[in-house]
């Protein structure tokens, strides 16, 4: 019995194991994600592979746990330390819990950077943010202004009055209003990130401001609800809904014309940049610290702030020309 079992077990193991060969002299960069099977991260892996193809001597190890747990990611990190990979670029499930494991990785000479979802500063050499508050604040008003060459009235549909992110973005937007002459913000309402409340607030905005030209919703819930409200009010072409949203949820609004364009980070660019940065630090010995400027291929140069964090780029604009490509991704 035991012989039979042994054969079964070894055969099954061997079949799974010999499937992934590894090249020896390549720079091995592990792209560790929150969990496998999420479209956003699959797209990031695609971007990392693009960077690898561009660099030539890079092998990307795309890996992550099954569930979005810190314990799962630590097991993955331990396995990567054991393989002595050259760099780990991680989107963390937990800011703090991964620190001891990642510190161990750095002690053994592995380059550690975080991207998307960060690790506490003592657990990584640098962090790549997809964008910055200032860039997002500017982008949301620019999206509205681009379609209003003669100026016009816009209103903001936010999440809750206490939503930190949205409040900062709106504040940043107000700072740059001077660059967009002729654009007036006629009001800010709060949909509390609830679909039905956002819908009612958007409808209310259109009733109280009959000349409204655009609704800016810097929240993925609000933007979808506002687009629906515009369609139901028969104001497609008259009121343009824009802001931050997910391509999969916004594909319908782009198709109906309720939204001409909206923005969010591009996961492909994010994965590409993370791989580029990891390569620069690991292979070319670029020092990652406050004030450092690190090249990241076609995405330009990343400048790190006092916490060794950097913002990749403007949020990526999605419109009728590219929505079909991205709506299946995330």
């Amino acid at each position, binding site marked *: *019995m*035991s012989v*039979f*079992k*042994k054969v*079964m*077990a*070894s055969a*099954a*193991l*061997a079949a*799974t*194991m*010999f*499937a*992934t060969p590894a090249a020896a002299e390549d720079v091995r960069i*592990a792209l560790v994600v929150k*969990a*496998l*099977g999420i479209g956003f991260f699959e797209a990031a892996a695609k971007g990392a592979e693009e960077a690898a193809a561009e660099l030539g001597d890079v092998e990307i*190890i795309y*890996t*992550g*746990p*099954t*569930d979005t*747990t*810190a*314990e*799962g990611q*630590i*097991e*993955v990190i*331990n*396995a990567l*330390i*054991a*393989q*002595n990979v050259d760099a780990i670029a991680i989107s963390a499930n*937990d*800011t*703090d*819990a991964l*620190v*001891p494991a990642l510190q161990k990785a750095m002690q053994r000479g592995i380059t550690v950077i975080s991207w998307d979802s960060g690790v506490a500063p003592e657990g990584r050499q640098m962090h790549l943010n997809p964008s910055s508050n200032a860039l997002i604040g500017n982008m949301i008003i620019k999206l509205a202004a681009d379609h209003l060459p003669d100026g016009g009235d816009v209103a903001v549909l936010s999440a809750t009055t206490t939503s930190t992110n949205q409040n900062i973005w709106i504040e940043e937007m107000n700072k740059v209003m001077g660059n967009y002459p002729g654009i007036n913000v006629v009001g800010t309402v709060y949909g509390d990130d609830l679909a039905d409340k956002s819908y009612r607030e958007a409808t209310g905005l259109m009733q109280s401001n009959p000349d409204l030209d655009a609704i800016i919703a810097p929240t993925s819930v609000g933007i979808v609800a506002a687009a629906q409200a515009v369609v139901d009010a028969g104001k497609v072409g008259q009121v343009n809904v824009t802001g931050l949203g997910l391509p999969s949820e916004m594909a319908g609004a782009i198709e109906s014309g309720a939204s001409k364009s909206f923005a969010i980070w591009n996961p492909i660019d994010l994965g590409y940049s993370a791989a580029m940065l990891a390569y620069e630090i690991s292979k070319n010995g670029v020092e990652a610290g406050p004030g450092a400027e690190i090249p990241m291929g076609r995405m330009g140069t990343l400048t790190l702030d006092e916490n060794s964090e950097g913002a990749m780029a403007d949020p990526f604009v999605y419109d009728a020309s590219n929505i079909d490509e991205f709506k299946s991704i995330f």
Partner: protein
Amino acid sequence: MTDTATNTRQIPDRLTSRTTRVFRSWEALLLAVAIAIFIVNSFASPYFLNAWNLSDATFNFTEKAMIAFAMALLIIAGEIDLSVASIIALASTAMGLAVQYGAGTPELVIIGLTVGLLCGAFNAVFVTILGLPSIVVTIGTMSLFRGISYIILGDGAFRGYPSSFSWFGQGYVYWVITVEMVLFAIIAVIYGVLLHKTNFGRSVYAIGNNPTGAVFSGIRVQRVKFILFLLTGFMSGVAAICLTSRLGSTRPSIAQGMELEVVTMVVLGGVNILGGSGTIPGVVIAAFVIGLVTFGLGLLNVPGIVMSIFIGLLLIGVIALPRLWKMAAEKRRRA
């Protein structure tokens, strides 16, 4: 003539010899699987046979195995505790809270163990005194205990554990031997003795095989079960100390889903999920099997999803094959 008096004939109490039994046992089968996996791993990855890497790999199972020993006794006695991972969350949250008020390492350990014991006692009261089914009670407390952690922590985290506290989960006793490994070994021996060498252990088997019979044999069934729940809670407290120390922080999602991994380990170790049979050596080997498989596959960057498929197949395979083998053997005998 005196020959007939002294020359007594031994009547064997078993049909097979002791060695045959050992070789045909579940543990031998599992050990063979473990050795096979070890050998395959050594050939499959050049990084496998490295003392430090193997040492790191033990973290994949040590904490789970600590709970698995207590869980094995509980399952042998015909009960189950699905709240263990939530007990870890609550104990870890309590320790994190204490840190905010300046507690040192000894206090943290006491708090962790006490919360574990209290949670175990809470389960035990509902099962043994109110007579409710343990699976229902512990599914309830699974949400309850973790829910309390979520209320206390929300989406925040407790940090700032004293540096001496990191000894439990990150410390080394000698060379590559971690503190957790030593704890694992000590706990394994204690539970092995408790189950296989004491009256208490015998009564655990008796209860699992026939609870009514156990009552009529003079075993205090409810008291034994009460103690078993206390032990499971206590071991969850120990695991909470190790895990919290290893992570250096507490979030309410800590150890999420660990209860099923613990039960998987116990069942793979040959413990009958319906109660009545199973051994501690079996659970020890099962812990190594799971640890070796996950680490081996991790070294080859096999995605976690494939890994869980593999663990599932291993579990079903190891359980189903002996049954199939027996069926085939019976058919052959009848033919």
